[in-house]
């Protein structure tokens, strides 16, 4: 039984926005439970407005205005005990957690590299932000070794970001983010801006990190199911701020239980024979406004199987066996 590394229980985070004279509350993450185990790559799949990027920040407890942490607990299990991230100060998080226990590669990280700094400088800056004293030479040596391990050319450290191709840049970002060997790595859309060939290399890099035990587990967030399924052992699907389904990747794709997952998978084209005849489907309507989400199940306005109950009461997350979780009235046994 693999060790539990992360427990996210009933977590909610809202954005408070000033619109004209009033304040709008956007319930980006509204009651999410998540568990992460060693040697697992958990894929979080969701489309625009699902709250997946917000969830990534919440797991890290990287909460900045206008985002507010509303309720819940985020607990990580370290080598000797556990830490409750939701009750730690930013200073404590910065020195003890970020980069060392959990690392986040946010969206567009590869575009956020300061163009006038060499990679070496960026590495030093990153490490300095998590450790008060550093030995520069040691850090650079360690980085060079890590680059070699991951198949990146060592000379990349002495280059400027624009001198590297997109794929290389992203892999360099990954190498830097995991330099302090965090137990958990969270990557938010790490390969969406890359061409497919680079994308595959990036995925391989993540796999290598896990295989070489540099990280113990990973959360891969993306809207692209076909990409996520290539690397994720388990997947969970997010819709309108909630997780609607979870299970092993193969099972989820072959037999989706939640109507949203079903619709999503049915709408994805794939370079596989038979797809052209299959006729892709789409989900009518659009994601709900999270400042005023629908009553009951948030998917009911677009669901082809809506029942009366769905409009009134939110379905609970049920375990249908074999670590398969669904939040849908269709699967709740009476």
């Amino acid at each position, binding site marked *: 039984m693999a060790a539990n590394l992360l427990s996210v229980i009933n977590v909610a985070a809202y954005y*408070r926005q*000033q619109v*004209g004279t009033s304040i709008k509350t956007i319930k980006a993450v509204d009651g999410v439970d998540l568990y992460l185990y060693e040697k697992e790559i958990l894929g979080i799949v969701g489309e625009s407005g699902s709250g997946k990027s917000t969830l990534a920040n919440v797991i890290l407890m990287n909460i900045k*205005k*206008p985002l507010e942490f509303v309720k819940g607990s985020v607990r990580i299990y370290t080598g000797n005990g556990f830490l409750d991230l939701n009750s730690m100060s930013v200073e404590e998080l910065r020195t003890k957690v970020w980069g060392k226990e959990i690392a986040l590669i946010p969206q567009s990280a590869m575009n956020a590299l300061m163009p006038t700094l060499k990679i070496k400088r960026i590495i030093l800056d990153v490490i300095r932000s998590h450790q008060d004293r550093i030995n520069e030479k040691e850090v650079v040596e360690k980085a060079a070794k890590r680059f070699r391990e991951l198949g990146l050319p060592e000379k990349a450290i002495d280059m400027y970001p624009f001198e590297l191709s997109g794929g290389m840049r992203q892999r360099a970002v990954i190498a830097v983010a995991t330099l302090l060997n965090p137990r958990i790595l969270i990557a938010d859309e790490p390969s969406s801006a890359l061409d497919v060939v680079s994308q595959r290399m990036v995925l391989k890099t993540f796999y290598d990190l896990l295989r070489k035990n540099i990280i113990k587990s990973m959360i891969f967030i993306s809207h692209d199911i076909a990409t996520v399924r290539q690397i994720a052992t388990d997947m969970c699907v997010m819709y309108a701020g909630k997780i609607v389904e979870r299970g092993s990747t193969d099972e989820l794709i072959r037999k989706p239980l939640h109507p949203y997952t079903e619709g999503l998978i049915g709408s994805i084209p794939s370079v596989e024979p038979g797809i052209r005849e299959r006729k892709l489907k789409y989900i009518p309507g659009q994601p709900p406004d999270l400042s005023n989400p629908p009553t009951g199940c948030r998917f009911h306005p677009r669901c082809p199987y809506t029942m009366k109950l769905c409009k009134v009461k939110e379905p609970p997350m049920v375990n249908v066996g074999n670590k398969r979780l669904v939040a849908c009235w269709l699967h709740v046994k009476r």
Partner: protein
Amino acid sequence: MKLVIYLLITNKRFIIGISIFLLIVLIGLIGPLLYPVDPLSFAGPMEVAPCRRYPLGTDTYGRDLLAQTLVGTRTSLYIGFLTALVAISIGTIIGTLAGTKGGIIDEILMSITNVVLAIPGILLAILIASYIKVRSVEVIALLLGITSWPWYARAIRAQLMSLREREFVYLSKMAGYRDIELAFKDLLPNIATYTFMAFVLYINGGILSEAGLSIIGVGPTKGISLGLILQWASLMEAVRRGLWWWFIPPGAIITVVTSSLMIVSVAMDEIFNPKLRGR
């Protein structure tokens, strides 16, 4: 659009800044009418400190300083406004032509811009001062405008060059818009906010520059402006001699006007650049 105006009106800084500025404008416009004393003619005893008869005292020539300050405010504001008008006009035309036409026209216009940018305004002013002995305020405003448009033209050109590649410009072109129509309907509205801000900055610059020119003696020779009051004050060594009522009022007004306009432009920057908006 309406949202922008609404945000502007409710922004505290903007309100404070614009109120102060409009107050000064009011003083400049109405003041001389309510206090119809000729600022340049003999009004009473020389170098009298402020009292009931002469609220801001008199200068070495016995001229009423309150009258001078009021008319001076009006003149300085006028010069600032005129400078802005000249600079924005020239800058917009050149920047738009360079940014939208590109090619050889762009090269020529940018060369001209660079040359004008390199000309030191003060030297030009001194040159003009030595050739034209009688200089009206309009001449000075023209001079200031002509020497200060380059940075704005450059900025407009840059903005337009990036706007040119936006898809909505292509779509308008494919819908049959002529170049001029395209420039007016698609491009200009998007640089309007920048132009507005630049206008405010130019008014500021104009008032300050005029004061600077006047103090060293190359400002207008006709009329009276805040800078000219300060010139007289410095010539007569008002500071050393403690005639505080001579140089403090005009200096204070210049400071207040430029500060208020600065606050206004900061507020506008906040609104127009959504990233700077607070929560």
